[in-house]
């Protein structure tokens, strides 16, 4: 069995165990856990962006639209492209973009194509 590490989501203090062979996102999803938003799972859409506050990891290529070189150096990465090599503490910074549906649904405001 692969080496396991403890991942702490600082936003709510929740923890889960993630194998070194799995991305932070894959490890979370495999346990049916939540906390990091799940999008394409392949480094393209940016919704699972996290800030690694402590710990080490291996990373793969991510879309520059969502992770700048500066981000990457500062540990702001996509959870789907990062595999833990130690225990990790992270903060969630990505979120689902408001779709037109969602915006209207939550505000009840009349449809306004330009402001959504």
């Amino acid at each position: 069995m692969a080496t396991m590490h403890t991942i702490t989501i600082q936003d709510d203090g929740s923890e889960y165990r993630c194998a070194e062979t799995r991305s932070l996102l894959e490890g979370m999803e495999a346990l049916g856990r939540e906390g990091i938003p799940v999008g394409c799972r392949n480094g393209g859409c940016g919704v699972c962006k996290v800030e690694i506050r402590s710990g080490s990891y291996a990373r793969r290529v991510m879309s520059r639209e969502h992770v700048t070189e500066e981000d990457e150096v500062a540990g702001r990465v996509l959870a789907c492209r990062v595999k833990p090599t130690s225990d990790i503490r992270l903060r969630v910074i990505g979120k689902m973009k408001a779709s037109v549906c969602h915006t209207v649904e939550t505000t009840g405001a009349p449809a306004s194509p330009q402001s959504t």
Partner: protein
Amino acid sequence: MAMTGVLRPGHAVVRVLDLDESVDFYTNVMGLKETGRDKAGRVYFKCNDERDHNSFVIRKADKSGIDCFAFKVLNKATLATLEGQLKEHGAATERIPAGEMLETGDRVRFRVPTGHAIELYAEKTDVGNGLGYVNPEAMLENTRGINPVRMDHALIYGGDIDGTRKLFEEALGFSLVERVKMEDGKTDLATWLTCSHKAHDLAMVRHQEDGKLHHVSFMLDTWEQVLRAADILSIHRVSIDIGPTRHGITRGTTVYFFDPSGNRLETFCGGYQWYPDMQPTTWTWDEVGAGIFYHDRKLNERFLSVVT
């Protein structure tokens, strides 16, 4: 029926983050056939029953998403006529000379109000589907992966979907097949357009960012093959978005998933036949969930908002 003007979607050019990984995915999981590579680094693919040289092209880039979506038109005279109609409509067009893409003739490129680059072309080399044109067999043996029939349509996301719809309707002769209305009952949230007898050749959803790709879709022959596609995706640990299930809109059966760079793809089957004397179907705001996923009957945030 008469099929003139714009015939069908011809090629999608999609950006990928890792070329080798993507070639492996599109070859062995999707089961597309690689037909060439060019000096610009683009890799060309075609589907099982397509006769033209390519329908899906990938390019290594630092961002995922779509470079352009192209339609094949009847012939060179039609291309010139449609180019004129686009200019009259106010679109800035550009001619890209034959040969810039492998085995592909002159392309007329323009940008639509939702920010996407769209192309028209009349000529692409007929390389055949491998069965021949005289006394062909019914199928190819020993195919790989999902092995779709053809690249079928795309769903794009952007702000001014009204402007993009009008351009396709007025300058290129597309018809509106289905639409989803927003809560006000007037504004379109999404529209499905066809240039042919299909339920859709291009669809668009209103979104806060321009130029986005929701998915490129590939056609399968049967619902059972949609289930088989999902099995193959799971075997290869591909990131599945949703399905197998059915859409209310177009009535197609479907499974959605993501390529190795997060670009969403669909393999689907079915949908009805469209004729230009038919009136469009409308989905109201309160039933949009069933329109999108007929069995779930509720909105799915990831499906609606995750794009590249």
